[in-house]
């Protein structure tokens, strides 16, 4: 018989518990209450949202559709007022009384607010949920922020805001940062890295009072009299399990809600999971044990045997550029020995704490590549006496010769944790592989390993390689070029998150190995920077291929071809005359109609370019960008004006689109086609973006190509009006500009991110509007006729000097 399960709290623990229940085919009628007005998202990824590396949409783990498909009744934004254990009912805030067979607490924790005078002023917040994150994201470069708390959360908040240009000061009461996870030396290196990011750090600092003005925070006063002005004060000093509801209901509560190994509370029909629980004296703030608990609580609810066991935990800081790892216990003590390794030049620090030839703690800063191996030693309590001399150098130095990373992974036991975010062990991945998951994407889908922060992706691939042998080849993440080891995606992420707005900034922050890049990376960087920072970035002509630098196509003999724009393929006798005159005047050897319905003047000498442009400009024509990684042409048919089958004004729409999109730079060339009916005379279905007009509106499809690959477009959406066509196309183009790899056509980008993702992006009206706005903004800066601009510097197209006479002497 179906039982009623009421869950209080839609956090990461209950979200995961629900998934396990559904996977197991549980027969529960589930009602999910949540105080936050939304469903489950990955709270640990709020830091990347804050720093701009991810969007909220990317960290949402369960969508409204997911809850609906799985028949879960959601009551988001509603709190439970009370629980009657005798009657087995809960009373919602609005007075609704619901009865339950099983009740699950997932009430999480509350941020701890230091009761300083002024802590209730407007502008004093914690760092806990999306609202807090959005408050911080709302700060601009002119704002000041003080963060109280130099722990994991406080530093992630500070780094995230600093990445957005906010003036941030961190106040920490202890002598060094993250004192619970780090020793002093690692704390020093971390502090140095944060200061380099422009963050002010004050340790051993006692807050005395929060000063306000008109009810709003103005400054933080320290007990040494220092006043730190701020527009926002973030308190990130810790969390406390949220136990009030449980306590009021008479369930046993200590620091948290008491649970046994099965996650049952003192009332057998009430269970609890996550940050709100206390198990064997411990409370939990990291995600891995929460997920273990979720697994156990689901089993218990299914009536199966399971037992929650506390494990050793490790910590990593999610701040780009601060590579930090800490695990176990590194306090000094009787019988404990230290092994320390420092390399000041590289900013590397490693410290191991040993007790009876077993590693009990590890701290690493600057180079954490071997952290999983050390963590394994701690958890396995491995006797390290045989490798003590070289232990600190990591697994590569054990047992003679550089070890193969694959053999290290092969040697891991089945319960070794691979994915810390999701608590996935090597054994679970092996089982998934045995069940048919043969690549990374399949492993992600079936186990969630590497699906959160992604730092374990390499390890997952190694498990695949070890298990599948030759059937699996670890895909080498291709770097952009020899100047860097970073991929296009890495660099784009850095540009956004670190707000790198110039090429030297990218070279420096991403560790370029050459002084100024090369012909491969510079054009890509130039595009990424202008696409991401249209206002801040200065376009660099010297990082453009000659076609874009001279605004004409270079030909095999070093001459150029010139193509004026003919909006939508329409021209006039006057324009044709001007083109003919220019062809005569500049002795153009070949005049050809291009594949995109424009006229090409081939064989123009480089030094004649400004003059021929000037003539064409005078006849009202601008550059056709036939040379650009940007909008080229919008091909059209004749539509309703002349065609007996045509629906809609397809020619007019083509002209309109070309006038809106021209001059925009994109990762690769961008060609559009607009056909007036499904006979498709403009061949719109093999363009990057195609529009086919039909009686009821406009079918927009994307991802076509007729180059090295021949591809048919796929339908993106159908819309009823021209206005919507324009908005959708601007949005798709902007999303492509912001996300695609340089030199990927739309179809390649679409293969990577998936059509569904693009559809969701443009169908969400807020996202669409934001993309349109950013596209329009970029156009105000980059849509200039390059011909008109370059005519003014015509002399640079001429030889620098003429030595014909001297050389002939």
């Amino acid at each position, binding site marked *: 018989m179906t039982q009623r399960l009421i869950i209080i709290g839609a956090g990461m623990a209950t979200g995961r518990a629900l998934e396990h229940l559904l996977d197991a085919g549980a027969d529960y009628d589930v009602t999910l209450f949540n105080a936050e007005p939304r469903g489950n998202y990955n709270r640990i990824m709020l830091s990347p949202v804050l720093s701009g590396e991810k969007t909220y949409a990317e960290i949402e783990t369960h969508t409204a559709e997911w809850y609906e498909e799985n028949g879960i009744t959601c009551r988001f934004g509603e709190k439970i007022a009370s629980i009657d254990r005798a009657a087995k009912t809960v009373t919602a805030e609005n007075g609704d009384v619901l009865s339950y067979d099983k009740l699950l607490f997932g009430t999480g924790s509350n941020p701890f607010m230091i009761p300083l005078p002024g802590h209730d002023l407007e502008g004093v917040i914690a760092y806990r949920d999306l609202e807090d994150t959005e408050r911080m994201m709302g700060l601009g470069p002119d704002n000041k922020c003080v963060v109280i708390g130099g722990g994991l959360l406080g530093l992630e908040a500070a780094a995230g805001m600093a990445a957005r240009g906010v003036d941030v000061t961190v106040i920490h009461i202890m002598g060094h940062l993250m004192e619970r996870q780090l020793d002093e030396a690692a704390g020093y290196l971390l502090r140095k890295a944060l200061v380099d990011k422009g963050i002010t750090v004050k340790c051993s600092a006692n807050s005395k009072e929060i000063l306000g003005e008109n009810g709003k925070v103005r400054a933080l006063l320290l007990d040494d009299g220092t006043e730190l002005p701020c527009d926002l004060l973030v308190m990130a000093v810790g969390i406390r399990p949220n136990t009030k509801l449980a306590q009021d209901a008479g369930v046993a509560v200590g620091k948290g809600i008491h649970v046994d190994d099965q996650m049952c509370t003192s009332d057998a029909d009430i269970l609890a999971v996550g940050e709100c629980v206390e198990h064997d004296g411990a409370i939990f703030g990291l995600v891995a044990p929460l997920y273990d608990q979720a697994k156990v609580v689901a089993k218990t609810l299914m009536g199966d045997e399971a037992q929650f066991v506390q494990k050793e935990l490790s910590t990593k800081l999610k701040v780009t550029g601060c590579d930090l790892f800490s695990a176990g216990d590194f306090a000094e003590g009787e019988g404990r020995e230290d092994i320390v390794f420092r390399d000041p030049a590289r900013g590397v620090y490693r410290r191991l704490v040993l007790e009876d030839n077993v590693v009990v703690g590890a701290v690493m800063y600057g180079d954490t590549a071997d952290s999983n191996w050390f963590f394994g030693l701690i958890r396995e309590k491995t006797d390290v006496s045989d490798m003590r001399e070289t232990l600190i150098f990591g697994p590569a130095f054990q047992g003679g010769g550089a070890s193969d990373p694959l053999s290290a992974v092969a040697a891991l036991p089945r319960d070794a944790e691979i994915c810390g975010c999701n608590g996935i062990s090597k054994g679970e991945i092996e089982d998934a592989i045995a069940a048919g998951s043969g690549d990374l994407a399949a492993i992600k889908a079936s186990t969630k390993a590497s699906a959160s922060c992604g730092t374990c992706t390499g390890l997952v691939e190694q498990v695949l390689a070890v298990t599948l042998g030759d059937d699996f080849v670890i895909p080498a993440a291709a770097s952009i070029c020899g100047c860097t080891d970073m991929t296009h995606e890495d660099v784009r992420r850095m540009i956004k998150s670190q707000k790198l707005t110039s090429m030297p900034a990218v070279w420096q922050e991403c560790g370029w190995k*050459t002084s100024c890049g090369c012909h491969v990376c510079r054009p890509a960087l130039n595009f990424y920077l202008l696409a991401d920072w249209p206002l801040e970035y200065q376009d660099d002509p010297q990082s453009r291929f000659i076609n874009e630098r001279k605004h004409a196509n270079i030909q095999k003999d070093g001459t150029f071809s010139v193509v004026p724009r003919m909006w939508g393929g329409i021209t006039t006798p006057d324009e044709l005359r001007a083109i003919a005159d220019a062809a005569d005047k500049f002795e153009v050897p070949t005049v050809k109609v291009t594949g995109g319905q424009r006229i090409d003047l081939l064989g123009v000498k480089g030094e004649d370019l400004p003059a021929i442009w000037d003539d064409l400009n005078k006849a009202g024509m601008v550059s056709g960008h036939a040379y650009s990684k940007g909008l080229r042409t919008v091909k059209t048919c004749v539509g309703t004006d002349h065609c007996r089958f045509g629906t809609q004004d397809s020619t007019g729409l083509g002209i309109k689109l070309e006038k809106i999109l021209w001059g925009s730079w994109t990762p690769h060339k961008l060609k559009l086609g607009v056909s007036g009916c499904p006979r498709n005379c403009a061949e719109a279905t093999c363009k990057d973006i195609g529009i086919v007009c039909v009686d009821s509106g406009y079918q927009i499809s994307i991802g076509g190509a007729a180059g090295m690959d021949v591809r048919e477009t796929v339908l993106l959406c159908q819309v009823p009006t021209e206005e919507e066509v324009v908005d959708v196309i601007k949005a798709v183009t902007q999303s492509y500009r912001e996300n695609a790899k340089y030199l990927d056509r739309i179809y390649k980008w679409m293969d990577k991110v998936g059509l569904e993702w693009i559809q969701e992006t443009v169908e969400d009206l807020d996202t669409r509007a934001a993309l349109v706005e950013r596209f329009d903004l970029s156009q105000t800066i980059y849509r200039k006729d390059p011909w008109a601009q370059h005519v003014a510097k015509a002399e640079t197209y001429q030889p*620098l*000097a003429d030595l014909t006479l*001297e050389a*002939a002497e």
Partner: protein
Amino acid sequence: MNEQPANWVDIAALEDVPKRGARLIKTAHGCVAVFRTGADEVYALDNACPHKQGPLADGIVHDKSVTCPLHNWVISLETGEVQGADEGQVATYPAKVVDGRITLDTAFLVRRAVA
């Protein structure tokens, strides 16, 4: 030996060539490209890639090399030698910057004419 004394000729201001860019100089025997690196060194080379005579002055300049715009051959500005797996060499000419002015030794250019 038919050694001619150096004949340094003032060509133009350094600023007339963009950083990481090039400009052409016309001579009676074809064009010479004058390159300026990111570090403001100048080099003069024949404006023809040994592969298919691509106009090197239209290439992308990086470090002390230029990439030919036609087929991406990379050529050292210092030695004129083709880098990487490809083979070949471009003639180079003495060039220097004096007080912010680019000067070339035209004696070499003359010898190029007779060669």
